[in-house]
């Protein structure tokens, strides 16, 4: 069965090719259903391989499928090959499963967009690349997918490219990611110089057997970490992700929450033996990058007003938890949190999309409120997602976050505190968001009279009202699409079923995904404990930290209680501030502006950076016009002067010859002493 693993990327590739040739003819909505069907087909294949693996003993759950030799040059032999193992199949399951649901949602969301089929063309290309990323047998195939998802992200973020903000965000995402890709490329070179191969098996075996030196392992791990900070939006390269929210909301859900941004985490888990044999400070660095990012991004999220920006910073923060887990040796927890996060964050984004859709392209939370009455299904689903991310038991986020924190404490106390404080803030800002959007008084009723519109996303609006606005036309002034609200008859509406069904399914997953890896605590049947850990065991057994003897493990009850208390504090505070209005909100501008991190970089790039580049270009021009042309002109003028000597006067020439002869004679006599 596992030898059919190539079918997983093949279906979305087929979808891409068909849509490339016939996309326009298939049109809206058939192209969308077709694309979604391709992704679900991949999901079915992945599920079949999963069940096939379940029936096999653990050591047989691995299959390398080679399609063809890709880069054969001397020692370097890179195949286009896939590795089906517990890790890659687990990744494929959630990528294709959640990806398919998001495709479905997008059919409703993108309805009426003139570039409808193109959107699904890109989406299928994205899923194809993402499956290559996770199924790669070697670093280069993963890199092919890695850059592929980056390219799709660029194409999809700038999908509505007539808005400058979207075009710029797409470009920024690509270039920032390239900085990380530079690290991944160097890591591949180092890996090849070390083991003469780019295959994961060779690398991991070299590490496990002790052949790989600590220096080489450290180099590879740190360079891949740089790549991971780019793709997974961690400090110092996180700043592209919030801007990437300028893309259509299904894109934010699929690429910038559930799948692509977890690519970095996946890569680090994939090479966990290398991280394990690297110097001790490597995992510590990884853990701190994750922990600090988790806290840093959470603080920013609590002062954002755009519904999607909150979720974007929250994504950065949650991936920080995964990286923290990787650094603490909790590889299972990293993947566990990745899966639960994929379900609840995709849910939240799609919910936000539904809200934006229903609010006719309003994204400012301060202009929402009371929406639960108008969008009951969306609200219910959103609240489930909220409970999951906030870490309320028994929703999924609680279990995975708890496991990350457990390993973090077993590693070191400061790491645990970073994660715990971030958890309080997470509960706080998510409560704030839910209250502002779904509870309290409706602030949108006064909106009809307001002139200023804060650059909302130009959703292709045509549900209810048959407005088939070309976003390309309407986009320059995004507010122009929202004509419905202009007459004071504005009323939020619930989304169509094709959008709500994925929401409901995701809500179910977000609520229950915790069962994947329930902890070994009292009251939980032994058979249901740690299922994911059991499944991933062959992949992570070398790197996974053993915490069984740590203080944290023995007192897990205490940690759980503390975590619940912290969540309660976060929720309670937000409730007092935003619902009861007992305390004045504290949303300082330095948090709203993201600690001025992004703006400082932008200022540098636009100021001294740009001036420096201009200086180089100017120097080149001056060099050409003065040095090069100067030399040429100099030669011409010298030649011109010399030419004046060529008078054609024979007597003059004879005179010069005589003079020369005399000089030579004199030189011979005086200096050489000949005579």
């Amino acid at each position, binding site marked *: 069965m596992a030898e059919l693993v190539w079918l997983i990327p093949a279906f979305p590739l087929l979808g891409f090719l068909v849509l490339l040739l016939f996309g326009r003819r298939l049109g809206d909505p058939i192209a969308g259903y077709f694309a979604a069907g391709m992704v679900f087909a991949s999901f079915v294949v992945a599920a079949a391989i999963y069940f096939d693996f379940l029936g096999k003993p653990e050591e047989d759950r691995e299959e390398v499928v080679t399609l063809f030799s890709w*880069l054969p040059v001397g020692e370097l032999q890179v195949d286009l090959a896939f590795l089906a193992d517990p890790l890659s199949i687990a990744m494929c399951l959630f990528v294709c499963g959640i990806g398919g649901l998001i495709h479905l949602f997008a059919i409703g969301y993108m309805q009426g967009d003139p570039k409808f089929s193109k959107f699904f063309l890109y989406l299928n290309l994205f899923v194809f690349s993402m499956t290559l990323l996770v199924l790669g047998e070697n670093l*280069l195939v993963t890199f092919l997918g890695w850059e592929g998802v980056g390219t799709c992200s660029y194409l999809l973020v700038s999908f509505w490219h*007539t808005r400058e903000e979207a075009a710029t965000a797409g470009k920024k995402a690509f270039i920032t990611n390239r900085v990380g890709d530079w690290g991944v*490329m160097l890591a*591949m070179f180092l890996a*090849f110089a*070390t083991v003469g191969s780019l295959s994961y098996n060779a690398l991991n075996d070299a590490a496990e057997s002790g052949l790989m030196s600590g220096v080489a392992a450290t180099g590879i791990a740190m360079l891949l970490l740089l790549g991971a900070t780019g793709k997974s939006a961690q400090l110092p390269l996180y700043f592209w992700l919030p801007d990437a929210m300028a893309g259509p909301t299904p894109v934010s859900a699929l690429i910038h929450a559930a799948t692509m941004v977890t690519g970095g985490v996946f890569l680090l888990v994939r090479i966990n033996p290398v991280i394990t044999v690297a110097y001790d400070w490597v995992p510590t660095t990884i853990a701190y990058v994750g922990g600090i990012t988790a806290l840093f991004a959470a603080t920013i999220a609590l002062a954002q007003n755009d519904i999607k920006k909150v979720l974007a910073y929250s994504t950065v923060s949650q991936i920080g938890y995964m990286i923290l887990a990787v650094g603490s040796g909790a590889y299972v927890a990293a993947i566990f949190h990745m899966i639960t996060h994929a379900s609840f964050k995709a849910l939240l984004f799609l919910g936000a999309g539904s809200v934006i859709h229903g609010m006719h392209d309003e994204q400012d939370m301060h202009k929402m409120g009371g929406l639960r009455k108008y969008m009951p299904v969306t609200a219910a689903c959103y609240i489930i997602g909220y409970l999951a991310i906030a870490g309320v038991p028994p929703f999924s986020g609680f279990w995975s976050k708890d496991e990350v924190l457990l390993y973090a404490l077993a590693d070191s106390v400061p790491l645990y505190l970073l994660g715990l404080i971030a958890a309080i803030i997470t509960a706080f800002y998510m409560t704030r968001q839910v209250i502002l959007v779904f509870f309290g008084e409706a602030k949108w009723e006064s909106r009809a009279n307001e002139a200023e519109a804060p650059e909302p996303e130009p959703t292709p609006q045509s549900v209810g009202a048959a407005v088939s606005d070309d976003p390309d036309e309407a986009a320059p002034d995004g507010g122009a699409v929202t004509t419905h609200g202009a007459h004071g008859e504005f009323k939020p509406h619930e989304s169509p079923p094709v959008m709500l069904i994925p929401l409901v399914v995701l809500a179910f997953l977000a609520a229950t995904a915790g069962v994947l890896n329930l902890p070994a605590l009292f009251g939980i049947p032994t058979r249901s404990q740690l299922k994911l850990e059991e499944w991933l065991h062959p992949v992570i057994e070398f790197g996974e930290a053993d915490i069984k003897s740590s203080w944290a493990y023995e007192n897990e009850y205490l940690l759980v209680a503390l975590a619940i208390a912290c969540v309660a504090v976060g929720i309670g505070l937000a409730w007092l501030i935003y619902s009861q209005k007992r305390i004045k909100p504290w949303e300082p501008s330095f948090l709203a502006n993201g600690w001025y991190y992004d703006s400082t970089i932008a200022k540098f790039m636009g100021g001294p950076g740009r001036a420096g580049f201009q200086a180089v270009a100017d120097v*080149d021009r001056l060099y050409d016009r003065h040095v090069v042309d100067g030399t040429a002109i100099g030669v011409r003028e010298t030649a011109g002067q010399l030419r004046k000597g060529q008078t054609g006067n024979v007597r003059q020439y004879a005179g010069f010859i005589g003079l020369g002869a005399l000089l030579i004679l004199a030189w011979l006599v005086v200096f050489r002493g000949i005579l």
Partner: protein
Amino acid sequence: MILAADGASLGFPILTAIVVLPVIAAVLVLFTPRRNPEYAQLLAGAATVGTAALTIWLLSSFETGEAGFQFVSKQTWIEPWGISWHLGVDGISLFLVALTAFIFPLVIIGIDPEREHKSYLAWMLLLEAGVLGTFLSLDLFMFFLFFEIIIVPMYFLVAGWGHEEREYAATKFFLYTMFGSAFMLVGVVATAVIARNSLGYLTFDLIEIAEGANFATSTGRWLFFAFAIAFAVKVPIVPVHTWLPLSHTQAGHRSVILAGVLLKLGSYGLVRFGIYLFPEAAFWDFTRYLFLTLAVIGIIYGAIAATMQPDLKMLVAYSSVAHMGFIILGTFAFTEQGLTGATLQNVNHGVSTGALFLLVGWMYERQHTRMIADFNGIQTVAPIFAAGFMIVMLSSIGVPGLNGFVGEFLILLGSWDTARWWTIVGATGVILAALYLLWAYQRTFHGVPDEKSKTFPELKVREAAVLLPFIAVIVFTGVYPKPLLDRINPSVDALLEHVEERTDLVRPEPEISQEQLERAQIELEEEHGEEELSTEEGSDEGEDE
């Protein structure tokens, strides 16, 4: 190095035919009636297509896995001086010949010179013959002749059919190349004369000199640099690059040829007449580090200069400086991957940058401007044109799955072992490439089209027919480069062996050898087996409890 002077042969002097066919056509074109330029066009088109067809035959009969020269044809020409008509092709030159033979018909068919068709086509055909001759010559004297012949049609093409500053550009191009050629002429003659001392007879034959002659260390180095200066100008290597942006912008559509083919004469020359002829001098630390450093400077400098160009053509021209820097980096890495990558990248750059120039040329045809600021929102009015531009641009950026990545990756991987710091700095070129191209794309294609850009016509059928082969090659080479690599690699391997025999070059080995790794893997598996057993027992006990 094995000399396969009698490698593959077809009983037909195919290489001679490839070189001579365009020359005959060039002469015939001059006799076509002036009133009917279409006759001249038909003739030129047929000749270039014929050459391309011959090249397809060449590609299909080329012996894969053979390192030496194939289809060799050798006729004594000037006996007392040991000069002969000596042509041959190996993995290093094969795809450059193919690139040349495929680009010319596309340019001749795809682009209308608008005036004086006859002389234009004659010059183009002569140029093609010159380029093919240069790539195929195995005789120093013939190589020099072909190398120099190229300057003449190129000068007239730039000066006759170029843009506003064409005279200035053509003169600059001419002076720059003549400056390099002067050194090369001295080098060619001196090499043959000095080689006579160790060979015992006078010959200009490349293989005989490279395999048999011994040069004193310092003599070899002087001679190497005499050649290298000429090649450095052609590539161009910073700081002798300033003719390139100007010639590109002024050359009109000929810039496709310029970027696609002419620059490769330099990088090809450095391999064939630099490394092969003077291995000691090329591998000498001073030379190596000089070229590596200039290469990396070129990558960064070219990319930065490209970013700030207001003129699209200038931008692509400077990006060429950066891309050629990669090729030089790979060449002087002296590893199999580096040199194979450099050879492949020669072709890749020809295809991608050639296609970019083609697209920019069409943009100029439409709006009569090359300024980035004069375009906006083209993607809305001409989505197919934009999609074509996007694919070519991604190839130039080096996105995996497209051809540019394969070359760049091999180059950087190959140079990691022998020139680590140069690689680390050079690899940042991939970030900069994304910066200048995406920024330019955003300013021209994204956004809302203004009045002028609204009338931008969509890609025409004829244009699409020209662009499609480029895109096909871009995708094919990116996905399945094996057929190319399998043909390039043996010749590169043999060249490195040639260098190894004459210098203390040692090819890098991985830190952990294949055998070590395999042994360790077997041990690990055994260990796992035992562990499995013990854990199973352990878990059984656990369940019993």
